[in-house]
């Protein structure tokens, strides 16, 4: 499997592609296979109070014969778990039949409340699952039926869980008009607990890519989400921010929809919220927005995001540091006036601190920030960066155990040499790199097993670091 040039690969993910290949702005790469534990901050959002085992063999091993509606009601209302499960299963099968599903009868028999109560039975996953499915099938009836489900306070949870289960379920719910039904419940008088559930369910309706939720639904939800973002309850704020982070995690058109609501200043404000559960999604949203166009990035810069990022880069949680560094790396991929703002707002010291002492994931983003900065910045800006200690820090990182990071650092060093050449200071820089131990490290990298790393190191040595002895020196 030939390895493509990573830099090229990364370029293809930037919206600026074609305009200037040297400017590297990175979208969140979400389609990637993950080896790690799924992000803990995000994972708990997907499901609350319910764990459904969607294993395929469970679904395929259906052996329950269809029951008459009376039997179903009896089973569901019984006290035996087995009968309950059997009843729920029969109910959802019955409800999924194409013609005249007996929705009214089920609702009239009061089974909705029953299904909802099953949702909390964590030790009976099969029962939970069947109940949730039955509820989905009811909700996907006419809007009256949806209304019935929504009005059962706890059922909003069920919808949230269903919506969080993937783009397909989400879109089924959207198609059966869950959105207006949910939005209608939001009012100044809605109790906080209920509002929290609604917000969370809305956030799950915004969630998931491939495909994104339909634009019409997004447009419909946004005004309410914006309203919610101005409340003070931390859970509501957190979920509303997560919703925004999902909506902004896409191409520039998606980002644009969010930016045009004028919510950016509020998001920046929330990045300084005292609750980490609010800070994390607010930061994610802003991170997504600055991965967009220069104009979109400018909206965040105008909202003074650059005053908050240094604080977050020094946050005690490494995951926050990493997100902040990622945002910084994308702002550094912008035009040189935005790069200048990075300097003016004092982002270089925290950047260098992270390069020196940060957690590896943060260091990785910080390295990208340096490479982007050096490829788009003016000569003066690059000099400033070097003087801030970034060169020393990235040279130290040449020993990391990650081929891609090494290649990106070599690219940065090369960019710095290009700036030095414009100043006629190549030799001075060569000496500086050597003093900092860079020559030794780059020479070592000529033995690296990764072909591209080896080549990059080799050509850096050839072109800049060593005087080639091809002619006499007089």
């Amino acid at each position: 499997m030939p390895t493509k040039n990573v830099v090229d690969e990364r370029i293809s993910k930037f919206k600026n592609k074609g305009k200037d290949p040297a400017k590297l702005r990175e979208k969140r790469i979400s389609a990637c296979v993950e080896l790690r534990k799924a992000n803990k901050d995000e994972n708990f959002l997907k499901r609350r109070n319910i764990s459904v085992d969607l294993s395929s063999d469970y679904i395929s091993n259906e052996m329950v014969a269809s029951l008459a509606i009376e039997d179903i009601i009896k089973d569901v209302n019984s006290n035996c778990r087995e009968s309950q499960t059997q009843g729920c299963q029969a109910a959802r099968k019955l409800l999924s039949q194409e013609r005249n599903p007996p929705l009214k009868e089920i609702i009239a028999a009061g089974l909705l409340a029953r299904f909802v109560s099953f949702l909390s039975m964590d030790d009976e996953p099969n029962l939970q699952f069947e109940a949730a499915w039955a509820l989905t099938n009811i909700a996907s009836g006419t809007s009256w039926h949806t209304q019935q489900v929504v009005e059962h306070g706890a059922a909003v949870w069920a919808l949230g869980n269903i919506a969080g289960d993937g783009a397909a379920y989400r879109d089924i719910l959207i198609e059966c008009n869950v959105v207006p039904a949910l939005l209608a419940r939001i009012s100044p008088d809605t109790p906080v607990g209920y509002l929290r559930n609604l917000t969370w369910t809305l956030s799950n309706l915004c969630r998931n890519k491939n495909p994104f939720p339909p634009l019409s639904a997004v447009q419909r939800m946004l005004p309410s989400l914006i309203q919610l973002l101005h409340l003070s309850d931390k859970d509501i704020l957190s979920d509303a921010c997560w919703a925004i982070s999902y909506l902004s995690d896409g191409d520039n058109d998606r980002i644009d929809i969010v930016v045009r609501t004028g919510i950016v200043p509020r998001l920046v404000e929330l990045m300084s919220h005292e609750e980490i559960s609010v800070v994390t999604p607010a930061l994610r949203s802003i991170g997504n927005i600055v991965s967009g166009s220069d104009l979109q990035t400018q909206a965040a810069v105008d909202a003074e995001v650059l005053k908050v990022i240094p604080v977050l880069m020094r946050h005690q949680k490494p995951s926050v540091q990493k997100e902040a560094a990622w945002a910084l790396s994308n702002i550094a991929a912008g035009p040189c006036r935005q790069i200048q703002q990075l300097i003016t707002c004092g982002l270089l010291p925290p950047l260098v601190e992270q390069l020196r002492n940060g957690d590896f994931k943060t260091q990785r983003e910080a390295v990208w920030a340096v490479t982007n900065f050096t490829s788009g910045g003016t000569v003066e800006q690059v000099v400033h960066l070097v003087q801030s200690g970034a060169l020393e820090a990235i040279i130290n990182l040449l020993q990391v155990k990650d081929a891609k990071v090494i290649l990106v650092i070599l690219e940065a060093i090369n960019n710095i040499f290009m700036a030095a050449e414009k100043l006629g200071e190549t030799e001075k820089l060569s000496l500086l790199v050597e003093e900092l131990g860079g020559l030794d490290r780059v020479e070592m990298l000529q033995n690296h097993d990764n072909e591209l790393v080896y080549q990059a190191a080799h050509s850096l040595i050839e072109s800049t670091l060593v005087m080639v002895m091809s002619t006499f020196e007089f």
Partner: protein
Amino acid sequence: MELNDANLQSLTEFLRKTLDPDPAVRRPAEKFLESVEGNQNYPLLLLTMLEKSQDQVIRVCAAVTFKNYIKRNWRIVEDEPNKVSDADRTAIKANIVNLMLSSPEQIQKQLSDAISIIGREDFPQKWPDLLTEMVNRFRSGDFHIINGVLRTAHSLFKRYRHEFKSNELWTEIKLVLDTFALPLTELFKATIELCQTHATDVNALKVLFSSLTLISKLFYSLNFQDLPEFFEDNMETWMTNFHGLLTLDNKLLQTNDEEEAGLLELLKSQICDNAALYAQKYDEEFQPYLPRFVTAIWNLLVSTGQEVKYDLLVSNAIQFLASVCERPHYKHLFEDQNTLTSICEKVIVPNMEFRSADEEAFEDNSEEYIRRDLEGSDIDTRRRAACDLVRGLCKFFEGPVTAIFSGYVNSMLGEYAKSPGQNWKHKDAAIYLVTSLASKAQTQKHGITQANELVDLNEFFVNHILSDLKSPNVNEFPVLKADAIKYVMIFRSQLPKEQLLQAVPLLISHLQAESTVEHTYAAHALERLFTMRGPNNSTLITPAEMAPFTEQLLNNLFKALALPGSEENEYIMKAIMRSFSLLQDAIVPYIPTLIGQLTHKLLLVSKNPSKPHFNHYLFESLCLSVRITCKANPTTVSSFEEALFPVFTEILQNDVQEFLPYVFQVMSLLLEIHSNSIPSSYMALFPHLLQPVLWERTGNIPPLVRLLQAYLEKGGPSIASSAADKIPGLLGVFQKLIASKANDHQGFYLINSIIEHMPAESITQYRKQIYILLFQRLQGSKTTKFIKSFLVFINLYCVKYGAIALQEMFDSIQPKMFGMVLEKIIIPEVQKVSGPVEKKICAVGITKILTECPSMMDTEYTKLWTPLLQALIDTPGYQTAFSQLAFAGKKEHDPIGDAVGNPKILLAHSLHKLSTACPGRVPSMLSTSLNADALQFLQGYLQAATVQLV
């Protein structure tokens, strides 16, 4: 090819012949096997042989042949035929794992390699059951088989350590983890248990520890890209066991071998790597375990001996500590005074000691010693690791560490003083410690550039270094002498000048030391001191200051070249070159003797050139001798020619390829010193220089072109008169050069020299052909570099032969060609021409086209007149820079020279002349289509030239 006994028999015979020492037997057999390897069943026949042959040699040979066959043929290249039949592919994959596992080790290794080659292509999609098949063997309980599986897995997975993250790669790793991680963990636990039950059975332990080492390697590969969920969940199991293994010792596994690392060392070394990986990349998750590992690794270091076999382990372990101690949140693990003292005392100091292995290298393998000690190829050594740890600790604890070490340095120096003969190694360690403590940043050019302020380097020099340098017996304690010389060399930028001046004569006398390391260091130190710059960018040490020592310096340097082992010592040769360069005129009196020694050396090394650096500096020194001497007195050039030509002739005759480029350069230098005539000795050589074979080697091209240019410059007319038959050969070289994108500029250098220096009539008949070649190349591949050179050439031609000649030449090749070249090449591209001389040539040439070419005034070319003028004025630099030309172009050859001082004034005068010849036309052409800016500049030039257009 059937799978039958006859074929087996015949293949066996051919295989046997491939082992025959006689090429007449071996080659045809190899050829035959190659010719049949495309047949179906061929690989299966090989597998059968390696399994069933009675002859052990044939079995191994079949295994090797099979692996090479797989290497050459397995990959399916797009648009090329599939070289292994599908049936064979399936059969191979179905059998190879079994076969590998049941084979003896020699064959197992080959098949394991083959599996990983196949795996690289087919795994996982086209070989889905490979992993399960392998994992199932874990349960076999047979560690011979298990180790085979582990080895194969290692060769399949180790690429995860260096490849870039990609969806494809991570999908594969995920799949591997799903199938492999749990069984591997179970195997790891079971193996450790077995080690306990078999703690007294040395043979069993050996096998089990190989397994553990392989398992640890697999752990490293599988955890490299990111921290997998499985390993995060099972970190406790892995880390606890790794920790246990680090602290484990078993007498039975200790080896007597001093050099070769044993199983315990290999395992622990890999565990250090694993811990370092987690500490670096997964710090957040690994934090709870890290302090335990720090302690264990530190204890390990304290208890590990000085033998070479432990080097890798020790250096890995120290590097682990070095990387952890600079992290702010682990600072607390080290900051206790007792901890620091203990690390300094028990880890750093012992690993800085001069060991007997170092002593052996110092005496018997000086090249290797110098490479490690001077050139920094000591990455894996204990000393280097200990140095890195000192530097890491100094990040937070510079004061305390310096204080602790000062105590040690003093006590070690004290020990030395008591009995130097016995305790000289203590002083060596003290110097090494001071050096590693003091140096914070270093370059080859300046030595140490940043020092620890807490160490007084000058005081140490005066009290402890100078005495060794001054010691009258240069051969006593050579290691300490070398240390002292190195101290001067690396701290040269820190020491005051008077100390350096004091050191110079002492260094000169050390050039006579018998020890190769010592006299090499002395030469190197002198060479470095001579390159140092003082104020005004002149050398720090002046020739006047060197005057008292000049003779001895040169004497000792050349004597050192005669010492055994230093006959081709590049450091000495470089010091000779540097001395010449520093001393300049002061060497002239010595040259007659020295040149003989240098040419003698050249003759010797040309028999078998093996040290490229030495040879390079040798030629540099020769060149400097020529330049310095002939600058004072050009007539001495002939004495150099007398001395050098016999050797050069021999080099040319024997075609010593490494030396030819140098010889051509020295010849150019010599020839350039002659004033406008070419000695017959050079003319005799001229035909040889045109031999195509010389031009085949790229390294020859630049110096040969330079040499031919020197011939043309000095003897254009004599070539035309006495070697006219060689002109086609010369143009043949030009033709070859311009055909190549890499060398076309060299071709232009040559043709420019021909145009400039050859009498016009001698090349008249070739001119058209020259242009046709250039146009062919232009049509074929038009690179910016070629166009720039082309523009300079046609403008030079125009300056030399006139604008009309240029226009007529183009139009004779093809009607309206001149207009096309103006419109498509000159006007749009002339702004790209760079270099002051090149720009000047173009400016003058274009001025001539504008003002001395009638067809520009009254044919269809007229419409190009103003665009051409516009292009000329818009050329960067044209508007401002030309007045500086007299200084900028000092070194560069300017074929136009003083004939045109300022091309802008020339343009003004030429336009004026043109306007008087056809009154009214020039101003009207200017005012209709030249843009305002250009017009303004032009007005300025006209004013400066005090002319007016009419």
